[in-house]
């Protein structure tokens, strides 16, 4: 029966308690204190306080782990900041990493808003990157055209891979959460197969060390152009990722198509009664989600921050998983998602500088994990309290 996963499953906070992000902390209306103004101000302060406590607890716990193992916590945090923001040119590096994360997250938001649980972005990204590599290294012609073609190919690759899950869901009733997860592994193995065969992706023997399984490198004119802003170099795909974020936000919030998608996500049965074809909109959401993940793969390949313009085994480097995580932690709000994507990218680029402090760089993963857990607690607590009050009010009335 209900193999669909309604959006309440995945973003109960965003769907059912819209007030969490609608009133950003700090916009408390001191001048417009109406009858409920004071109460609202108090609750906004409470939200901010709760977030602050949780984030501080996460950072404190990370610091404790570092200090207990004989490291210097302040040095590590400084290294993380130097490596991601403060060091010269490091913001460019971070933006280059944040762009694919954001693109994956946008796709995840679209699938999730339709009430679908697509957790296979890592695989869709890999297939997208493989398609992009094939087109980018085989197709000759003017550079810009090749870039366009390889990006389109990456979208098609990702969408195809998600399309398998969509077809199985709507033809055979197989839950998409299972198929997308299974297809992650298959994607890695398929790309690995491609990287072992020269008629697919493997570079010709003269361009690589013996037995090395990498693709040919993209030609210099088929790479995404790099811009330089105040000494920070990053591929222009960063701007496209931001534009795409605004576009997705607009489509979901302000168009009929987006409205129908959200309706489907809130309650499939009601949406279908109102004339939203679940199979059509659901498939579209999965395909677009996969397409975004694939595009992220293409951008990673042609943008150069990953794998140096070549496809290598393990190319996705967990960007797919991170993107999914970013979408869910950002509670599927575009603004929050952009912010979280940047923070996660900071931890990734910053970790490169941690080794110099004599602490293992994987500590960045620990910080990131603890931060995510900390960010999950406040909305869940607030949501539960709100539910409890609502239930109490209901019981009091009857």
């Amino acid at each position: 029966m209900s193999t669909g996963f309604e959006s309440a499953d995945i973003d109960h906070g965003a769907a059912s308690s819209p007030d969490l992000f609608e009133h950003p902390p700090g916009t408390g209306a001191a001048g417009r204190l109406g009858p409920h103004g004071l109460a609202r101000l108090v609750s906004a302060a409470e939200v901010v306080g709760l977030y602050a406590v949780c984030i501080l607890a996460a950072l404190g716990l990370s610091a404790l782990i570092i200090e207990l193992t004989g490291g210097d916590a302040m040095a590590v945090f400084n290294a993380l900041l130097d490596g991601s923001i403060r060091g010269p040119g490091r913001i460019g590096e971070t933006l280059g990493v944040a762009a694919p994360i954001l693109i994956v997250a946008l796709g995840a938001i679209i699938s999730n808003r339709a009430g679908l649980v697509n957790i296979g972005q890592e695989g869709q990204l890999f297939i997208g990157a493989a398609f992009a590599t094939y087109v980018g290294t085989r197709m000759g012609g003017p550079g810009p055209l090749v870039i366009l073609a390889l990006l389109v190919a990456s979208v098609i690759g990702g969408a195809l891979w998600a399309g398998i899950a969509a077809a199985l869901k709507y033809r055979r009733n197989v839950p998409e959460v299972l198929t997308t997860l299974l297809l992650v592994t298959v994607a890695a193995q398929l790309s690995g197969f491609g990287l072992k065969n020269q008629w697919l992706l493997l570079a010709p023997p003269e361009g690589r060390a013996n037995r090395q399984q990498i693709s040919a490198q993209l030609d210099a004119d088929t790479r995404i152009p790099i811009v330089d802003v105040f000494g920070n170099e990053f591929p222009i795909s960063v701007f496209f990722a931001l534009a795409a974020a605004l576009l997705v936000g607009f489509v979901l919030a302000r168009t009929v198509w987006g409205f129908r998608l959200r309706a489907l996500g809130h309650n499939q049965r009601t949406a279908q009664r109102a004339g939203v074809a679940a199979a059509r909109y659901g498939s579209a959401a999965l395909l677009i989600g996969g397409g975004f993940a694939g595009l992220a793969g293409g951008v990673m390949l042609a943008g150069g921050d990953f794998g140096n313009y070549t496809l290598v085994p393990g190319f996705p480097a967990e960007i797919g998983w991170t993107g999914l995580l970013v979408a869910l932690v950002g509670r599927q709000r575009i603004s929050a998602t952009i912010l979280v994507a940047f923070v996660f990218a900071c931890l990734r680029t910053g970790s490169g500088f941690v080794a110099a402090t004599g602490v293992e760089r994987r500590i960045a993963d620990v910080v990131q994990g603890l931060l995510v857990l900390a960010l999950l607690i406040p909305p869940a607590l607030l949501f539960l309290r709100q539910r409890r009050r609502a239930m109490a009010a209901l019981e009091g009335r009857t």
Partner: protein
Amino acid sequence: MGSFLSSIGDVLTSEAAYINAFTFAVFLAFGATGEWVAERSGTLNISVEAMYLAGAFAAAVGYDSSQSELVALGFGVVAGLLVALVQAQMSHRLVANQFVVGLTLNILVLGLASFLASELDPVTEKSDTIPIPLLSELPLIGAALFDRSWLFYLIYPLVPLCWWLVYRTRWGLELRAVGENPQSSDVSGIDVNKRRRQGIYISGITCGMGGTFLVLAAVGQFEDSIVGGRGFIALIAVIFGGWTLRGTLAGCLLFGAVLSFRLSLPALGYDVNGDLLASLPFVVTIIAMSVFAKRVRPPQALAQPFIRGLK
């Protein structure tokens, strides 16, 4: 194709291949059995990977500090349980999204294990085998099944125990009910999220045992890539098995065989593409799910959180 079939024949008559296959299979079976319990209660628990790794790392530390395999097992189980505790409390008390929690735990534990491993650098050695008289003399499979470390033998009581718990106790009935229809279970007085948390604890315990088995009986030395994504394979074995314990174990055997074929075929001198071979079980699982979609039914509330009053 002919050479492929004859290679299969060669592997099927090689004792070493059976030993390898059962090492992988039993490693998967530890996690898969617990994961099966959790999935029957409606949690698609993707932190198996983290639980395995935590168990393996803690077991290595435990062995290093005490030189006792029993203490190592205790450490491993407690570490698996700790991860399960976070997963369960976050996803089934605070009702945060279970995939976010699971993904985060996978990242967190991998980071923590490799960070702490570089600081502590636990040294372990491979556990001795204890042959069971008579049974270990059996041709082909004797050594693979009955000439093993005592950690291997833990799987023999564990599986029936989990089966008994889930199918023959009131607790198990409630657990399955919670996985099928949480709303009705709630109305009939079952604490839905409590049962689900307990399901996750069980997978934490079994994964902790699996991690201990991995580091002490299968590999012999801890490294941070020791689990390397195989936790997901244990999860997929449950899906492959159509959420029955029998099927899950069959899935573990099949996946274990395929994982070890990848290693043993080249050793026997055959040139088989490992990647396509390795993807076979996943493709088979997907096809089986679509072909038998009518007969194989996931728990109806799988991966759906329960909040009273919200449907």
